[in-house]
């Protein structure tokens, strides 16, 4: 290749790279050693609203003062000193540049969720003269993740927690109390003659009753309590730092509230009652399962004894000689 040919070749390459630089669906920023902006691609212009001519050769902190923190400066230093790559993950940082989100999801983040990285740019002598930052929009992924987490812990029909989530929480509470002592209780309840509701008014009505009862009971618990749909028409409530007497009083509130609640389904006023079992954690219990078993036994006693009532677990204190 003659001289002109080589120059022409490099000119073409430069043009191609310039076009990729502006066409790529990724933010690219180039900073020099004084942290002045030396490159700002089209993506950054579009999302920041700052045209390249307004930001080029200016201090990055002029436009983004919040970046003037020790973590960001430390990262820049390590790029220039060691040729390091630094990563700013979406999970930990959420974003580096506060841009508006462009997704149309119902769950909204305040700002575009970004995964960013920073690394060195070298000259012909292998000296680091600049650093690059790339910015990737992760909002959609973060929204999906958020939805998946929600779906994994909530019951689809009633919107309260599901059994899996409750069992995880119960295990945590159980292990903590095994180690450090203290008290907590659970209430399990079940809708009386639920099958009759379904048979008389249909399954849609059954679903309506489930929703209506869970939302009524949800208003009677504290923020720290967890209520879950445990089975078909069975619910379970975990009450941290609550002894059996207080828990029984809470159960009575549930019972009375549901007994007096009128559920209006398609003009039919339907009243239902619930039966409840209450149990508290004992250090002697071997596993969360033993506690659930005790509560379940109490619930079935309440059913046997005539329904619309509360039964408390039977526990014989082991007497130490």
């Amino acid at each position: 290749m003659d001289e002109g040919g080589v120059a022409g070749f490099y000119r073409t390459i430069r043009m191609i790279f310039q076009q990729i630089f502006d066409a790529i669906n990724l933010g690219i920023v180039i900073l020099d050693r004084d942290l002045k902006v030396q490159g700002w691609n089209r993506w950054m212009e579009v999302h920041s609203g700052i045209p390249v001519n307004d930001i080029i050769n200016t201090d990055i902190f002029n436009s983004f003062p919040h970046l003037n923190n020790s973590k960001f400066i430390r990262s820049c230093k390590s790029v220039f000193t060691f040729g390091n790559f630094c990563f700013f993950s979406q999970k930990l940082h959420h974003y580096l540049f506060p841009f508006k989100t462009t997704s149309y999801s119902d769950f909204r983040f305040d700002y575009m969720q970004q995964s960013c990285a920073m690394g060195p740019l070298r000259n012909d002598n292998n000296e680091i003269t600049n650093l690059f930052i790339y910015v990737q929009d992760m909002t959609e992924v973060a929204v999906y993740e958020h939805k998946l987490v929600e779906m994994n812990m909530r019951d689809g029909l009633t919107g309260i927690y599901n059994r899996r989530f409750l069992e995880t929480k119960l295990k945590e509470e159980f292990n903590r109390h095994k180690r450090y002592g203290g008290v907590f209780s659970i209430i399990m309840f079940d809708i009386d003659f639920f099958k009759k509701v379904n048979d008389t008014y249909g399954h849609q009505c059954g679903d309506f009753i489930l929703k209506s009862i869970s939302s009524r009971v949800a208003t009677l618990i504290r923020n720290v309590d967890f209520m879950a749909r445990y089975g078909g028409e069975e619910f379970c409530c975990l009450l941290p730092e609550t002894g059996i007497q207080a828990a029984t009083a809470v159960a009575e509130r549930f019972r009375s509230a549901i007994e007096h609640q009128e559920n209006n389904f398609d003009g039919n006023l339907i009243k239902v009652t619930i039966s409840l079992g209450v149990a508290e954690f004992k250090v002697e219990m071997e596993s969360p399962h033993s506690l659930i078993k005790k509560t379940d036994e109490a619930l079935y006693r309440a059913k046997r004894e005539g329904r619309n009532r509360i039964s408390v677990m039977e526990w014989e204190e082991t007497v130490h000689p």
Partner: protein
Amino acid sequence: MMETHEEQIFTSEELEILQEIMNIAFGKSAADLADVIDTHVVLNVPFIDIMQVTDLPSYILNYVKDYRNISIVEQNFWGRFKGDALLVFSSGSGKELITMLQHGENTSLESDPIEILERETLMEVGNIIIGACVGKLAELLKDVVTYTPPMIILERFYNDAISENHFDPDKTAIVLKTDFSFTEGNVSGFLFLITSNDSIQWMKEALRVFIAQYE
């Protein structure tokens, strides 16, 4: 047993040069680290061990067993010099580093649980230390490397943290090991750089070029 591997792969002269390069590299890294993270990191004299990859887990466990719980930051580096960097922190290092690096400045969100801060801090410091050591080493061997994002295992019992299936069993591992500690705060650990036979031919040549400039 180990010596036979060493002989097969590197001559004693090559090992000596590699040792010397590591001394220079880690010495320089320590000085530069002080500038970047405002605290002195003591990097002890590094060692080179060569072994079958399958022996790696027990080799590493043997060093870190006194810590009981450990956190590991892992990064791959890619150049002609390529491999895996494992930085093992002693238990509690993450919390110590949070206090050391924050300098009273509260950039974290109220809602961030301590575990997230711990992860972030260990990954950040791990990334810097690994980059410093690998970068200097590569620089002396006239290579430029890039890195994958750091991955972390946080505060796990040492025996559960390093698994057999972590490494490709058909390979030979060249392990460059150093221990480090921070002069401030109670932070210490080990750095293992594990590179495999893929890099050996290039490394031999790079070592020859390195020593040639002094001859």
